[in-house]
């Protein structure tokens, strides 16, 4: 295993150093070379977007979790003559509850605004048996929800505490799944790149069977023959992926600003040090090409011997 790792490392180092003579042993292939560069570029472009999606959904999940975790709602359903008393009792209780930074009963206008999307603008809130809502803002540490529920049950019988867990969990789970899908897409792109480069390398090896025969005749070892193909495909993948990555980053950069448009998709992009991450795509593409071509070349050479 150690010897094999050493061989791979040696091959990688010689790949970087290059061997002009070994490169020249294999004739240039114009059209297929351009296809490999194009495929690597297209895949890198897609990988930039998959990465942006994954990072954006990660940020979104964190933001949703943080925002929803800091607030909760107390709903008071009581007969009309007890509503005010129970509301006041609940507010007093909340003011003395550790972990509650602020508690505020929503006004009739605010409650009307909340219902407006469903019932229209002229809803007579005052005449309807609508529960009173109290907005609770938590401190950083948060409150003890179980303890608060127990106290509310004893002192405010019409109160129902909603700490947003029901809302938060599916949202965060959905964002988490989107993030996983983003990484899965990156994995699939890498696998598809490896498959395409393997096919291209196999085609090049088959097309150069005569070259391989001649090289073997004069005493070339498999690693020498493979090196010419591996170096060629690795450099093609690197250059194609570099162009694709730069194009992808420019496209992400030119997306509409989230604050202006306000939607989820417009939040797709990189922020802060995350802009460094796409720059890893070209070397990773080269690594994938190196491994795929080397495996294909050595397997093909073994089959041809």
């Amino acid at each position, binding site marked *: 295993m150690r010897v094999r790792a050493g061989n791979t490392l040696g091959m990688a180092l010689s790949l970087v150093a290059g061997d002009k003579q070994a490169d020249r042993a294999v004739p240039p292939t114009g059209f297929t070379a351009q296809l490999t560069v194009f495929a690597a570029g297209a895949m890198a472009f897609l990988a930039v977007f998959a990465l942006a999606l994954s990072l954006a959904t990660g940020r979104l999940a964190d933001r949703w979790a943080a925002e929803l975790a800091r607030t909760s709602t107390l709903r008071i359903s009581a007969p009309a003559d007890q509503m005010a008393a129970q509301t006041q009792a609940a507010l007093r209780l909340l003011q003395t509850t550790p972990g509650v930074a602020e508690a505020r009963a929503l006004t009739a206008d605010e409650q009307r605004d909340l219902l407006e999307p469903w019932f229209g603008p002229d809803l007579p809130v005052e005449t309807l048996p609508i529960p009173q809502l109290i907005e609770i803002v938590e401190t950083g540490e948060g409150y003890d929800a179980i303890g608060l529920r127990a106290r509310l049950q004893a002192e405010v019988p019409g109160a129902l505490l909603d700490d947003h867990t029901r809302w938060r969990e599916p949202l965060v789970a959905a964002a988490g799944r989107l993030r996983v899908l983003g990484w899965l897409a990156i994995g699939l792109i890498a696998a598809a790149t490896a498959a395409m480069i393997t096919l291209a390398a196999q085609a090049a090896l088959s097309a150069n069977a005569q070259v391989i025969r001649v*090289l*073997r005749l004069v*005493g070339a070892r*498999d690693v020498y023959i493979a090196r010419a193909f591996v170096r060629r495909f690795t450099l093609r993948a690197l250059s194609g992926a570099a162009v694709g990555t730069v194009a992808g980053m420019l496209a992400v950069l030119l997306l509409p600003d989230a604050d202006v448009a306000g939607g989820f998709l417009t939040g797709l992009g990189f922020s802060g040090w995350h802009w460094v991450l796409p720059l890893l795509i070209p070397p990773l593409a080269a690594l994938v090409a190196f491994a795929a071509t080397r495996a294909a070349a050595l397997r093909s050479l073994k089959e041809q011997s």
Partner: protein
Amino acid sequence: MIELRNVAYSYGGAELFSDLSLVLGPGSFHFLTGPSGAGKTTLLKLCYGELTASSGEVLLFGADARAMDRDMVALARQRIGVVHQDCQFLDHLPLAENVALPLTVAGRKGDAAQDLADLLGWVGLTAQAGQLPPQLSGGERQRAALARAVIMSPDVILADEPTGNIDWEMSQRLLTLLIELNRMGKAVLVATHDLNLIRAAKAQVQARVLRLRGGRLQSAGVDL
């Protein structure tokens, strides 16, 4: 240097030859004759490890070819110069680079520029050094193949119908080159149908003539 002991070779269930023994020692010169399809090319390929014997032993410089991995075979081939009838060049490289290919592959290109120039002069191809193989005549290609076969100063030279595509004068010139190499101590094995070439060689060098026929290898006189 190369030894075949009771070697048999079968292909597709049919036995091409069996119980074949041959020793190519230093300074030996062998001609291999026989009808087409008798297995001359196969025998040569066994000698440089391209094929593996069905049974028996093939020793390449003392090592059993069957036990050698591909890297070991490649290293052994750097000590064996092979001339094919169809020459087998890299058509996209100039003649000089083709001739120097064994040096390049062995990582010895840098210190052999003068050797290459001398060798091209020796085979009379200095003027054609920059030409691509398809631009060369049959005789030039045969001489270039011989130059490539000997540039590493191999211990053994195997030639498969080296004069098959060239005229008598060029055949004589190639034979002279092979005899000169043999006098330097190289083992030479030439597979050929050309009896005139064998007669011409025997007049100049102690050569053993072998005939491959009916799956057996026999010694033969020059009047085959």
